[in-house]
């Protein structure tokens, strides 16, 4: 086990395009680090540079304090689980798991012992003598993990390991990976584009955009204090509402109501500006269902609901609104970048499932304004600035 440190890592391809641009990250010994971002953000390239399958154009990569830029993959002592598993189809499950041990020329007795231990751990015992082609997707996934954990590697690297599984199995395997990592305590770098995986698995999450590191923090920190519009829009489902906001006389004018400027933002600097306000669907509520204790933190307003969706344990309401061209263009561009469709502006509100708000009729809503973010529409930065980052896992 070892810490992995990336210093100003750059990957530039032949055409000069930087796939990864000046990324610095310190992954602590035993930490579970997630690399997340939309497709093409350079997260897989970064992982492949760590394992040694891609050359590093510039910067320093060290594992356990040793610079490994020029080392071949086999000398870095890392274990990797590939997106498509990359099992050896001509070998049995036993030999697939034993492969790294055989290469290390370990005696048969040790190999048998270790493979059986891993098979026990991953519940693969009855499949040891089958070929990968006879296994189901989830079993293949477990064999790939078995091959990674069988030799005591310095770190585990996962490249979107669950993206080929169906939704149910993905949830199970996610828990499995989490349990395994906690148990083995091995440093892990995990690449995904799925934010549920990012939020649930990681000690810390690094969000990448076009090869540039946006923010690296605990999942909670990312959710509650995104540094910019990109992180705010990427983290959270349903996504954060990004509303046009104008600051006048120290008050923020939103499409439905006017609220006080959040603490931590200099009212003088923001005065008279057109900004983007970020409010999560969960920061809204049917005014009738707000606790008295919470009520003072926000304020109520009236709006007409277009559509409601009742899901049993949660309920969403959609409220259309008008947005200035400038803000709308920004938000649409962000949606496209996050692999979503640019939609007409609508407020998403998470309601108490018991709420009986009717579609097409005006209703009273409550919004928790204390948790509102304000972003500069040009740079995308959070006006509250960057908080002290959580450097260590909780």
């Amino acid at each position, binding site marked *: 086990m070892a810490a992995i440190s990336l210093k100003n890592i750059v990957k530039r391809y032949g055409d000069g395009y930087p796939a990864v641009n000046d990324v610095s990250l310190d992954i602590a010994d035993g930490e579970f680090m997630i690399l997340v971002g939309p497709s093409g953000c350079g997260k897989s390239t970064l992982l492949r540079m760590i*394992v040694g*399958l891609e050359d590093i154009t510039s910067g320093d990569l060290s594992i356990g304090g040793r610079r490994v830029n020029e080392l071949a*993959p086999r000398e870095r002592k890392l274990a990797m689980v*590939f997106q498509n598993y990359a099992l050896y189809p001509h070998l049995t499950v036993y030999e697939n798991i034993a*492969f790294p041990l055989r*290469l290390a020329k370990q005696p048969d007795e040790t190999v048998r012992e270790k493979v059986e231990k891993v098979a026990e751990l991953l519940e693969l015992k009855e499949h040891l003598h089958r070929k990968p082609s*006879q296994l189901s997707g989830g079993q293949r996934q477990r064999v790939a993990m078995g091959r990674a954990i069988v030799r005591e590697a310095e770190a585990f690297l996962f490249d979107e390991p669950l993206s080929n599984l169906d939704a149910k199995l993905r949830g199970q395997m996610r828990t499995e990976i989490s349990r395994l990592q906690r148990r083995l305590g091995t440093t892990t770098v995990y690449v995904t584009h799925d934010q549920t995986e990012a939020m649930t698995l990681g000690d810390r999450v690094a969000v990448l955009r076009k090869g540039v590191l946006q923010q690296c923090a605990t999942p909670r920190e990312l959710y509650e204090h995104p540094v910019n519009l990109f992180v705010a829009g990427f983290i959270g489902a349903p996504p954060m509402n990004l509303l046009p906001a104008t600051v006048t006389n120290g008050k923020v004018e939103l499409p439905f109501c006017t609220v006080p400027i959040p603490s931590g933002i200099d009212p003088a600097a923001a005065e008279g500006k057109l900004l983007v306000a970020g409010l999560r669907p969960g920061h809204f509520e049917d005014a009738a269902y707000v606790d008295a204790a919470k009520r003072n933190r926000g304020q109520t307003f009236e709006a007409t609901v277009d559509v409601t969706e009742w899901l049993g344990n949660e309920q969403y309401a959609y409220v259309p609104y008008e947005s200035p061209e400038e803000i709308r263009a920004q938000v649409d561009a962000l949606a496209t970048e996050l692999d979503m469709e640019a939609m007409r502006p609508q407020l998403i509100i998470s309601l108490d499932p018991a709420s009986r708000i009717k579609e097409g009729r005006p209703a009273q809503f409550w919004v928790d304004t204390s948790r509102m973010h304000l972003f500069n529409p040009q740079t995308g930065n959070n006006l509250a600035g960057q908080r002290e980052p959580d450097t260590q896992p909780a």
Partner: protein
Amino acid sequence: MGRGASKALWAIAGVLIIVYTLFPVAWIVSLSFKKGSDVQNQQFFPTEWSWENYKTVLDSGLFTSALRNSIGISLISTVVSVTLATFAAYAIARLEFSGKKLVLSMALAIAMFPTISLVPPLFDLWRTLGLYDTWIGLIIPYMSFTLPLSIWTLSAFFREIPWEMEQAAQVDGATPWQAFRKVIVPLAAPGVFTAAILTFFFAWNDFVFGISLTASDAARPVPAALAFFTGESFFTEPTAAIAAAAVVVTIPVIVLVLLFQRKIVAGLTSGAVKG
């Protein structure tokens, strides 16, 4: 037309083709069992089945030395050619180097040369170099004609194998050579066998080089030796004996095909990646 009728038509067509292709073989087999002047009996089957011709053939030094030459030369050319082709094809499939297209098209151009056009220059060259009437003298031209096809077949196979296979092996601690030997070659086995069989057939069946680049028992392979065959006595036509010899040399080919057919058909790459 109903399904049954169309099925029957296919069956009839199949039988016709099998009869058409196997009839000459059956004829040779039947001929090889005809004794002495029975060849002229004007019937398909021999009047009396006899092993006499096989005895004649296998007793003759001409045939046995030719058989030894054929087996030796074909096997050596196959092994060397397939090994070289495997390396070359792997490089072509995996490495980026300038002139890759040129190498591939040159290889194809060589395979398109009419063999006979190479015989006179080779004859002269081999005489000068002392390779005339030696095993090497035949192995070299066989290799140069079979390598292109093997390289093309194998590079197609290597391209089918996902890159992740080698990458996984390298991360698991394999050197590039170990990754190639333990992962890539076994996966490309159907391709390797295909290439091997094609090469072996080319060398085994060759007549042009066999007859023009050899002069004695030292290197003359079976197809060429058959042309020098005489019967029991100088005056009898050796038709039946030649038929027996032909049957003897066809057997290894059939055995080979039956042995490797499974290997060729087996889809080894299934289950390598997500399914």
